[in-house]
């Protein structure tokens, strides 16, 4: 299993932060997922070995955190918040719009593998609702039209 140099440098440094190796697990899983695309069997095996854990212990942690996934997602994961503050300003309508536009449902991925869609809980953008996160980028004060622009920009990004 080969990770990038950046990942390795971060991992090595992170181990010096804690009295136990296991403590590095949660952030490391997220960085590994960002790099590989999902927490595959291979990634789990590798991180379990490095952190002196069993694979079961690693899977046990993965299943708790909502950002972690063992299944690959699209290149851009569109996470639409429908929690109360976003709901009051059209978050649910925005989710429906994305479902139609992308032709997939909650946790679905478009056939070309470009977009995944997810209905998520509060992302901390309540005062700028309705809001969406595409991977880690926030898009706020959205309307259906602005949402279309956002999706188009990600499509364009890929072509460059």
């Amino acid at each position: 299993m080969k990770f990038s140099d950046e990942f390795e440098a971060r991992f090595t440094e992170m181990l010096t932060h804690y009295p136990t190796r296991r403590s590095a697990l949660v952030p490391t899983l997220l960085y590994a997922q960002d790099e590989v695309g999902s927490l595959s069997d291979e990634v789990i095996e590798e991180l379990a070995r490095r952190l002196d854990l069993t694979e079961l212990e690693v899977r046990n942690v993965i299943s708790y955190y909502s950002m972690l996934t063992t299944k690959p997602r699209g290149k851009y994961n569109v996470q639409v918040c429908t929690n109360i503050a976003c709901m009051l300003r059209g978050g649910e309508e925005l989710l429906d719009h994305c479902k139609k536009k992308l032709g997939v449902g909650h946790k679905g991925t478009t056939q070309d593998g470009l977009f995944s869609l997810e209905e998520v809980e509060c992302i901390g953008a309540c005062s700028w609702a309705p809001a969406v996160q595409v991977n880690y980028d926030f898009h706020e004060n959205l309307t259906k039209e602005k949402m279309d622009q956002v999706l188009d920009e990600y499509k364009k990004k890929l072509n460059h």
Partner: protein
Amino acid sequence: MASLVSHPDEVRVISKRFGQGATNIDRYLELDGYKAVQKALAMQPDAIINEVKNSGLRGRGGAGFSTGMKWSFVPKQSAKPKYVLCNGDESEPGTCKDRLIFEHDPHTVIEGAMIAALAVGSHTAYIYIRGEYRYLSVIMQKAIKDAYAKGFLGKNIFGSGYDLDIYWHGGAGAYEVGEESALMESLEGKRGIPRIRPPFPAIVGLWGGPTVINNAETLAAVPHIILGGADWYAKLGTPKNGGTRLFCLSGNLNKPGVYELPMGYNLQKMIYEVGGGIPNGRSLKAVVPGGSSTPVLLPEEIDVPMDFDSLAKAGTMLGSGGVVVLDDTICIVKFALRTIKFYQHESCGWCIPCREGTDWLKKTLTRFHAGAGLKKDIDNIYYLAENMLGKTFCPLGDAAAMPTMAFVKKFRKEFEDHLEGKPCPFEKAGAAEPVMA
């Protein structure tokens, strides 16, 4: 990234460096940065604790416990290392304030954590930031690195002989991790299952060592208190509720945003003047005053000072400062359902009342809102919630129960309007357009 707002009634303490480029350490130093920690280095630990106690600073995460008091519980002598843990796992629906602090003024959080460490005799602190806030983790990691490069962190800080390390740590999506004992579990690389208390974290915390856990906004207030003095800070607020806080105004408002207002600021004024009132000619229906877990207030109940004690007297909580405003087009049953859907999703399943209670509430409310509600369901919803209250392992159960009970109590008529197969009276025509599941 998130846009800033302003209002003449604001008293800017925590937000005074917002938009000033203070993520840059040299700029932060120009703006009185790292002066408070140097002052604290010359103080006795007890004097720091007393200053914070006298300032009336209370935990900004939601519980509102006296920060100075919390610090004083940490034993002076400890065989195991002591830790400071900054809770930046902001995830209470309606709350988006820590995000702005990390984005605009990360060094204040570092400095606040340093002062907390000096006060309790700790040499290691962690700043935990939720996984979704990746860009803030990048900002924080750089801020910490810059502080090390200047010799403010590490061995012999500011030439004082005191060693202090601060590390960043990241989550991966879990509301419950915002609960302090679950936060420690997460930092130890485990599922965020809460721990039983006692022992409290101040005695047995991270890796068994005494640990102080404070919200990011709480720690961000500390340097200002040390520099400005306890009296100055206390007087900004109301008795026993010192200072200011960041109120996150959201929902059906003309000018939503994060505003820093003195503790005790009137809620009605906050909605109509600061938040610009209700848009589209609609009228106010309800306010959730402190994040989704706090019991709802009716329009006739909002002439109330926004501090911990006044809101407790009004039967609700100041919570995390998330003020969510609902206009009269909003269906309370639907709003209650969305609130419960969240708690059901976030319940860790460790204890039965929370796991089963949130699940049955979600099922019942879903059926109810869909028009298949029975009269007895209304009491049943209340009963389910009541049976979680105070009976769960951690406050997540209470957080689900409290708002639900208030919705039923204060909007019973609206629940009754959904009975006997009646369609939701608030459903907009045409909104039921079929969409993919």
